[in-house]
């Protein structure tokens, strides 16, 4: 008689802790034949609010790390993922929608993308910032700073790679993120949370929620503490989000839901993805004795 396996209860990852929704609600994840896999937390607006609070708390410290250190922490995340690559691939294909070969390819690209952005942490400033030769006796320089807490709604397809591609450039510069995982397959995000917990990324820098867009989008858009939004969104929902975001003058980046082909391409990684969630600060410092 074969051993009865111990099943895992999937949890969201907020403030470095594994949580179930405060509401206690879950929704079933089924495979494509309709067979039950597990129950996924159905995070609520209140969970989102708590996650924003956690992100706000962690953001300052993360932004205050040296660029070199942020690079090492993200590289370490890459190492964690590499070690558990097969597990991630299985998670991507858990519903049977994605063939395992494709899932393995997706994982490889996702890990490479983590390494790509970990390499940018101590370089983007050198490309984007600059000194300005003002007409006067001042040392004038523009540096970038993270905008703060950024809300991310990931694309449904490319459940791992889409998430990584949207989130990594944002945290690379010292922002903290509250992300809503793919609704159709949140399982890779749940697994990623477990890897984040064993990486050196401080708790609260990257918070991963599971649940439904319709329920959470309004709070993402209107929460004043959230300073930026990167949303994979149906164009129809765009206007409503932007109207709500106007109240607190958020930086909003809205993209159409992209497919795996796009996320796998070189176009899906760029210095300018980092730039999207940066502020520029210019300082005039006198030159005198």
């Amino acid at each position, binding site marked *: 008689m074969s051993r009865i396996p111990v099943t895992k209860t999937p949890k969201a990852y907020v403030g470095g802790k594994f949580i179930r929704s405060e509401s206690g609600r879950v929704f079933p994840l089924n495979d494509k034949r309709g067979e039950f896999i597990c129950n996924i937390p159905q995070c609520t607006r209140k969970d989102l609010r708590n996650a924003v609070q956690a992100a706000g708390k962690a953001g300052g410290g993360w932004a205050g790390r040296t660029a070199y250190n942020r690079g090492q922490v993200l590289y370490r995340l890459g190492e964690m993922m590499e070690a558990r690559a097969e597990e991630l691939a299985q998670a991507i294909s858990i519903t049977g929608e994605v063939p395992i070969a494709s899932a393995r390819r997706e994982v490889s690209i996702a890990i490479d993308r983590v390494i790509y952005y970990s390499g940018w942490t101590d370089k983007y400033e050198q490309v984007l910032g600059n000194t300005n030769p*003002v007409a006067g006796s001042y040392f004038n320089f523009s540096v970038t700073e993270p905008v703060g807490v950024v809300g991310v709604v990931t694309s449904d397809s490319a459940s791992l790679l889409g998430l990584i591609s949207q989130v990594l450039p944002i945290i690379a510069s010292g922002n903290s993120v509250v992300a809503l995982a793919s609704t159709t397959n949140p399982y890779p995000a749940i697994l990623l949370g477990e890897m984040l917990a064993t990486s050196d990324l401080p708790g609260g820098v990257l918070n991963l929620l599971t649940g439904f867009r319709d329920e959470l989008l309004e709070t993402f858009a209107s929460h004043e503490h959230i300073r930026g939004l990167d949303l994979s969104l149906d164009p129809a929902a765009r206007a*409503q989000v932007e109207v709500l975001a106007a109240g607190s003058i958020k930086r909003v980046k809205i993209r159409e839901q992209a497919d795996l082909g796009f996320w796998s391409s070189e176009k899906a990684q760029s210095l300018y993805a980092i730039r999207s969630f940066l*502020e520029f600060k210019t300082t005039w410092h006198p030159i005198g004795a």
Partner: protein
Amino acid sequence: MPAKRTTKSSSQGKKTPELLFGDLWEFDPAPETADPNLRESYSLFIGGEQVAPKSRKFFESIDPATEKVLTKIPAAGKADVDAAFAAAETGLNKYWAKLSGKDRGKYLYRIARLLQDHAREFAVAESLDGGKPIKESRDFDIPMAAAHFFYYAGWADKLDYALPGASYKPYGVVGQIIPWNFPLLMLAWKIAPALATGNCVVIKPAETTSITALKFAEILQEAELPPGVVNIISGAGATGQHIVNHPTAAKIAFTGSTDVGKAILKATAGTGKGLTLELGGKAANIVFEDAPIDQAVEGVINGIFFNQGHVCCAGSRLLVQESIAETFVKKLKTRIASLRVGNPLDKNTDIGAINSKEQLDRISELVSCGVEEGAELFQSSCSLPKKGFFFRPSLFEGVTLSHRIAREEIFGPVLSILTFRTVNEAIEKANNTAYGLSAGVWTDKGSKILKMSTALNAGVVWANTYNKFDPTSPFGGYKESGFGREGGKQGVCDYLKVES
């Protein structure tokens, strides 16, 4: 021969020593007499031509220092806005998009040169129309406007260096709406980078200060800029709304109040239009006990009274360290006593006229509110002209963060004074606002400057100076002060659609 020397020190008397800023040597009026070359009425500038408004409506532009009518300004209606965007689209497709960066640059250089040629007449027009002192329009607004065209002219054929490795393209036609505090300079901030990056423009000056923008149309004709590349239409808020809502506008660049900024965000929601918003501020000017005190006094004065305080980045909240607060405020009051308020066209005027009756009323209302809330008001005892819109340089002591005058943008010559004890308290108080445009730091310690600059949530931090601008230096805010940057390399990037 020397006057007779007293041998007894006056300190032996009980009287507190005071300085006397009287009229022993009074300056004669020194009005700037250059002819501003105003027309009796103006036209819209659409498709390279001066055209009468289809709306057939005009409004009067008045001199805020005398309340006299200067000229008539067309009020563009929806049909006029449509015509302007149609002209811009034609200008883009027929001319501007076909030009090389090098040639776009040459037009911008021409514009810069012609502005310099006409600098004095523009300065007089600006002061007449807006009320700012001639020394500011002459020494700051107009030369800085020309400098912006010069700076961005050079970028036109070097865009790849602003965005290394990026794939980018111009937006196309850009709608721009500018405020009344620096009319021509804001126009230059908007038009120069837009044109350098290959966009065409429909721009609307503020209702109370349209003259220099419409005069600028004459410069564009002189420069033989291809028709439709820049279209200048005047009007009030309704005209602005038509611009924001126009389907041809691929990007909106706006400088003005945070309220209007939010309205624009809502109006453009879901349209995919690009945005640059340069909105309000409530900047902290932070003076530490180790500051160069007299320079700090001067900087605080310049921070709040420059352009009558009609500056979005005005240092309207003075945060002074408690240990020096008393001395510092005394010095501020002494300095205020020698400020000259009056005729904007007089070369010796330090503070001119408030831009409009409406603005004067708003300032008066907020100042009364400050008094009601219990803050202590001090005003310069200078004489004010009998006609026109003037307001005494004012400061409030005993202000706390919860006072309205400490939270709302007054946009006038009114300073609120708060105190702090430690570096961290200064940072907390400075950042305790929804705005984040600018801040000032006064200390003799270089490392403290950089610590403060890092900690302050503001797009521009001035150390031991204030209200400094330069075409190479990006300007723009954090949080509810807007997004996007104008000036510098960053100003180039914000007029290009970049794949990210």
